């Protein structure tokens, strides 16, 4: 049997200037004039969002796609679902494609739940007769059938999402493309939907491509996984193997980041020059034991007088779960109008908070009031944590698998009561 999806040398190039949200005719005219006057024609920057993609997917395969942000995962799905055309190469798709890049596409607040099921179903490629046939199942599955003739604008956002998921779970194409969408909303209900999709796909041998940052869903849903980076396919294979490879390769620790020319805001009031991780002695390191404090220091330069700045970090674990975010709400200087010059800010992640693992940090500088992000460097730093059994941690002496997203050292009190 020929592969159901056959991709050959597929590539997608974006011109950065064109990728702006929209252009005014004035911009085109003025840039044309500028280019005519200037002798060294400045070409618009181009970049390849996807390059040299070759891939065969067999009928009935459930394949996961993982990779960092900007690896090209979503672009690949958009090309296969024909939303955007490739720049090079071709793809042969041997079956009906249903794409679920968003839940509730086309939902209209003025229409009732019933009307929206028909509209959304039809946008997702269901025939009217198919919707009518499945209508009761869809309404029943969503659990909002009591409100089915109420306009959608009176629904809570949770109810809207349930309705949207229900339609999605009843899609019936030969190839289903799913992007991240299942990452939002009510967890229980998502599981119900994934379960339903899995059941249908196993029964009918449906082919699924599933993009996610959530390694757990990939593990549960897909036997095979593709790892992408920088617009290319890095490797394909057994899911567990690929996830390990991803974790090992892409989550190397990075104790220090220096921006040679400064990571600056667009109007250049501040530039971030360096960010690094260190212990309490000030030594720059990237491995901490779980009981240790993790210091994060940002060095930046203020280029204009009289503005206020504050600092922030986002912490992610290796499953890309956002563990926490922190904005500086304690330092005194954040409320002062700054003079030009160099500044330094340090945040401390307390010891006995994180389990063993690899963590990634994004760092940011922003205006406090109103909150406006000036510099936001994603995945700037990363570090590894390990257990030092000579110190008291939440593990105690227990050395086996000890799950949990955080691992605080919880105080326990126990007494004899009689």
């Amino acid at each position: 049997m020929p592969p159901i999806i056959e991709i050959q040398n597929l590539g997608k190039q974006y011109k950065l200037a064109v990728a702006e949200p929209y252009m005014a005719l004035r911009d085109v005219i003025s840039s044309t004039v500028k280019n005519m006057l200037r002798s060294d024609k400045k070409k618009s920057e181009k970049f390849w969002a996807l390059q040299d993609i070759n891939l065969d997917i067999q009928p009935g395969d459930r394949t996961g796609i993982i990779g960092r942000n900007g690896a090209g995962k979503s672009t690949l799905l958009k090309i296969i679902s024909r939303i955007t055309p490739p720049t090079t190469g071709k793809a042969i798709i041997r079956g009906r494609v249903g794409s679920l890049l968003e839940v509730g596409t086309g939902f209209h607040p003025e229409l009732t739940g019933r009307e929206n099921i028909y509209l959304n179903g039809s946008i997702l490629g269901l025939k009217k007769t198919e919707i009518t046939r499945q209508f009761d199942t869809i309404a029943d599955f969503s659990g909002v059938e009591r409100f089915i003739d109420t306009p959608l604008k009176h629904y809570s956002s949770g109810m809207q999402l349930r309705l949207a998921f229900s339609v999605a779970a009843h899609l019936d194409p030969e190839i289903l493309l799913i992007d991240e969408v299942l990452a939002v909303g009510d967890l229980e209900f998502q599981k119900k939907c994934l379960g339903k999709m899995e059941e249908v796909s196993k029964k009918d041998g449906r082919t699924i491509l599933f993009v996610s940052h959530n390694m757990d869903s990939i593990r549960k849903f897909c036997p095979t996984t593709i790892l992408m980076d920088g617009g290319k396919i890095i490797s394909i294979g057994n899911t567990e193997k690929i996830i390990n490879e991803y974790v090992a390769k892409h989550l190397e620790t990075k104790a220090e980041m220096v921006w040679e020319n400064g990571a600056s805001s667009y109007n250049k009031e501040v530039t971030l020059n360096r960010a690094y991780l260190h212990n309490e002695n000030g030594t720059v390191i990237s491995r901490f034991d779980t009981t240790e404090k993790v210091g994060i220091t940002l060095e930046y330069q203020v280029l204009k007088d009289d503005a206020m700045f504050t600092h922030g970090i986002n912490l992610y674990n290796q499953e890309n779960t956002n563990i926490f975010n922190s904005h500086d709400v304690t330092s005194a200087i954040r409320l002062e109008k700054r003079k030009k010059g160099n500044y330094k800010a340090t945040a401390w992640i307390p010891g006995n908070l994180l389990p063993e693992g690899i963590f990634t940090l994004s760092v940011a500088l922003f205006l406090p009031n109103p909150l406006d992000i000036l510099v936001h460097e994603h995945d700037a730093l990363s570090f590894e944590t390990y257990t030092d059994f000579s110190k008291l941690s939440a593990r105690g002496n227990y050395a086996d698998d000890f799950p949990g997203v955080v691992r605080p050292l919880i105080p326990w009190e126990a007494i004899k009561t009689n």
Partner: protein
Amino acid sequence: MAKFTTTIHPPSGFSLGLKELWQYRELFYFFTWRDIKVKYKQTYLGILWALLQPLGMMLIFTFLFSKTWKIDTTPVQYPIFVLAGLILWNLFSASVSHAGESMIKNANIISKIYFPRLIIPCSSILVAFFDFLMGLLIFIVFCIVYQQPVDWSAIIYFPAGIILVLLAAFGTGTFLAALNVKYRDFRYTIPFLMQFLFFASQVIYPLQVVQQTWLKYILAINPVNAAIELFRYPLSGYPIDGNIIMIGTASTFIICFIGLYYFRKTEAFFADLA
């Protein structure tokens, strides 16, 4: 399975994609149905608005131009004369305005799902056509009330006028829709263009009042003039100026070609720009 084989490759060549449009006909229906439903939701008078709008305009123009400044439209009485022009004009103007805005309004859908993009401006035109049918109903009622004789040739001339308007609206609408995706300037141009074209169309006056032949033929480039000329013929029996029809039809086909060509050429990139 081979029935659904699709090959995806970089955009090249030009085709109308009629076969695909046919495959997606249900979506066509649903978009039109949505827009009609949404349009009159939460209005007290609902669908009656489609009747009241042309009626109101007719009253204003009748008051102005048959009582205050007299425009001679014999043998047709002015209210009938102006209503005939108005319903065709409204069909054109509503189609072009809605189709022109349609791609931006549906940007969220375009960037998430594939379907032949032409469905969107076309369904906007269908929505306007639905309102037109309401207007036509009013027109027929008024013809009866005013005892307006209508020649049998209306069976040919009415549809001919309507089709000409629809084609012209389709060409202009798709062209503006595609331009709007890339250059939002056209958003602001449409109302102005419509106002200009209204006065350049023989809605409130007959084209015969224009003395200079050259000016008349320049005005005929606006296809609405030819359409109204055809539509009013069974009412007045006033001989049709064949040149006006020829110029109007030619310009309709040119507009259609440009609109459709530009739309099909650029639609692949709508999702990247919208």
